[in-house]
């Protein structure tokens, strides 16, 4: 057979095999991934999409650091029970500024795509300190150190710079004031607090998230992040597409 005859010759050439493997293995990715960057409909256009504030971004980094994504998804599927349990299904635009995305792959705990605003700050703080105080059946670890550890905010400008470098539209003013904005968002009634809403929009949560106004802790950042999940845009609430049973 000619195909096997061809192969009989190919497998005598190391470079032939190498090039063959690279060629054959490249096609799938090129066809499936490259168009996602060029086909415009892949991600919806929504005018009201907001950016993470420096404090929320720091909270997101704590979420990543602690491996929360291993047990919590942030992707509500277009299935009836998913939508009825967690809220309107997730749109591509909602993770447009998520470098990297945190869609997750396993729900040992519930989906968190729309957790923002569902519970009070105090509930989140209590839950993170000891989940079983508020959900007796929970198997989530305790995160008591978040409340004890002061948040590092002096380098948030560099974080925003890197975010800008990968395509998130942070302005130079946002980068320059990142540290002050993080402090202000968790410390209301200061000059810095007023600036945050000016830069990031009136819908920004400016308050003392962890109940300790004297300093900005990791708990402030993580709760600020959890409270914004699903609330960066209202696009998903107005979407009326059908849901699959």
């Amino acid at each position: 057979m000619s195909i096997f005859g061809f192969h009989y010759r190919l497998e005598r050439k190391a470079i032939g095999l190498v090039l063959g493997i690279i060629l054959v293995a490249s096609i799938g990715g090129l066809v499936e991934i490259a168009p996602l960057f060029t086909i415009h409909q892949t991600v919806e256009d929504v005018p009201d999409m907001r950016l993470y504030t420096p404090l929320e971004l720091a909270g997101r980094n704590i979420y990543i650091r602690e491996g929360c994504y291993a047990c919590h998804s942030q992707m509500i599927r277009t299935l009836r029970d998913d939508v009825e349990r967690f809220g309107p299904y997730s749109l591509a635009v909602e993770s447009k500024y998520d470098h990297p995305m945190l869609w997750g792959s396993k729900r040992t705990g519930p989906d968190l795509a729309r957790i923002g605003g569902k519970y009070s700050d105090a509930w989140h703080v209590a839950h993170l300190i000891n989940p079983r105080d508020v959900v007796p059946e929970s198997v989530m670890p305790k995160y008591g150190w978040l409340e004890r550890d002061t948040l590092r905010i002096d380098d948030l400008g560099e974080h925003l710079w890197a975010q800008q470098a990968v395509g998130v539209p942070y302005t130079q003013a946002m980068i320059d004031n990142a540290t002050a904005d993080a402090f202000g968002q968790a410390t209301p009634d200061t000059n810095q607090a007023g600036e945050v809403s000016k830069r990031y929009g009136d819908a920004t949560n400016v308050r003392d998230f962890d109940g300790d106004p004297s300093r900005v802790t990791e708990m402030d950042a993580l709760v600020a992040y959890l409270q914004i999940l699903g609330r960066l845009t209202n696009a998903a609430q107005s979407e009326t597409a059908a849901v699959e049973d």
Partner: protein
Amino acid sequence: MIAQLTLHERQQAILISLAVAICGLMLGLAGRNDPLGFHGALIFLAGVLTIFLIGHNYYAPEPSDERFARYYDDPSKVGIVLAMLWVVFGLAIGDWVAWQLVNPDLTFGGGWSSFGRLRPVHTTSVIFGFGGNGLIATSLYVLQRTSRARLPDQVSPWFVLFGYNLFCLIAVTGYLMGITQSKEYAEPEWYDDIVLTVVWVVYFLIYLRTLARRKEPHIYVANWYYMAFILVVAMLHIVNNLAVPVSLGHAKSYSLFSGVQDAMTQWWYGHNAVAFFLTAGFLGMMYYFLPVRAGRPLYSYRLSIISFWGITFFYMWAGSHHLHYTALPQWVQTLGMTFSLMLLIPSWASATNALLTLNGAWEKVRDDATLRFMMVAAVFYGLTTFEGSFMAIRTVNALSHYTDWTIGHVHAGALGWVAMITFGSIYAIVPWLWKREAMYSARLVEAHFWLALAGTIIYVFAMWNSGIVQGLMWRTYTESGTLAYSFVDTMIAMRPYYIARAVGGLVFLIGAALGAYNVWMTIRAPAAAADRASDLPEPRLAGTAAQPAE
């Protein structure tokens, strides 16, 4: 080890270690206010320690030219030992976190001991620590024998082996400190990704340089798979890890991709890490060790061609089945499902090829636990690939996704296929490498086999049950059309299965620990066996080879 190196090679090794130490020092200084500083120090220490080790034996007598009459197997020996260390460590961590899901307070209070940080320690230790060392060790062994050529030099294999383990060590210690990119199976941060990239290029060059010196006109099937493993993993690793570090003094980086594009890139990577790390590499292992151990020629050469190119082509399309019903455009989901179904053909071609190779040797499978490890691995490979194609179907995935069914599927593959083929290959290769007649204890191999099989079955059945139960509970409606169960209800239902899973994992871990003990005792036993014919690049005159060619 160092006595085997020529003076020139010792100088080379010192220079390379010096370069490594300098890189570590620079990284450590740049990251002195960040966890990055610790890893800089770690790299620096690794370089300095190597220099001292070589310097200590620098004036040892040089090896004679006699060495060219034999293959260079020392790196394979060390790789096997490291693989056994990693597997016991990685399984122990895995079982610990399994018990944490039964009792969440089984921690030491600090962040390092919580589930979210330990989980990648488990996955990296078993996949990259155990699997990777097993692949590097066996691939260098197989490459030399099937090419009848010695490795091109005696420094680069050590660079690959030690560099690779440094990569794993940085990764695992990083997770404990909270350094992670959060991309599953690609958690290590940018600087560790660079370490792996450098190591990988050298690994690939060893392959090409050895093949260039081969005395066999044809490149054997096992090497196609090992080469696909090296090449495609490089491709996946580089693309998926493209990121911008916060600064050169920060461990943290931000992925170049975001949202839907990032999800697709990640699962293109994630699924093909399964394909080319956990499948192609271990198929390479299987295509050498199974026929040799069984003393039978490979059943079908043509089947192996079909399965090799089928796997290389189809797998790369299948990643999007991880994203059914998500915000990923549906045309990509559909392509992923379609190719996942087609993938069954090359997968079963390989499994069939392996099992039919055993025809005529089934009495050996009955008597020899080592060969039985490989046989059961091929069976689990067939089962898992069937299950994988099934779970890629949209409507099945609607039930299975986000549940423990996925965990069960992964472990059927990881324990049943990957670990079993590796243990089988290790039990075959250890007496060959260290010139022993056989393993220290055949009964311990037998015990390990049954513990591994029992552990896998308990684990997988527990996760099938919990996954399907949870998936069904999530979608159960009352007669009035409301959801019947809260999320917490479904978590309570998981508890008995989580206990069973942790027990299954423990059984598997005990087996692996027996294996490590057995390997260690075999190494400590005095050398008894002479060279096998396959240990010599140039066949000797009749009468000097102790065993017939296989």
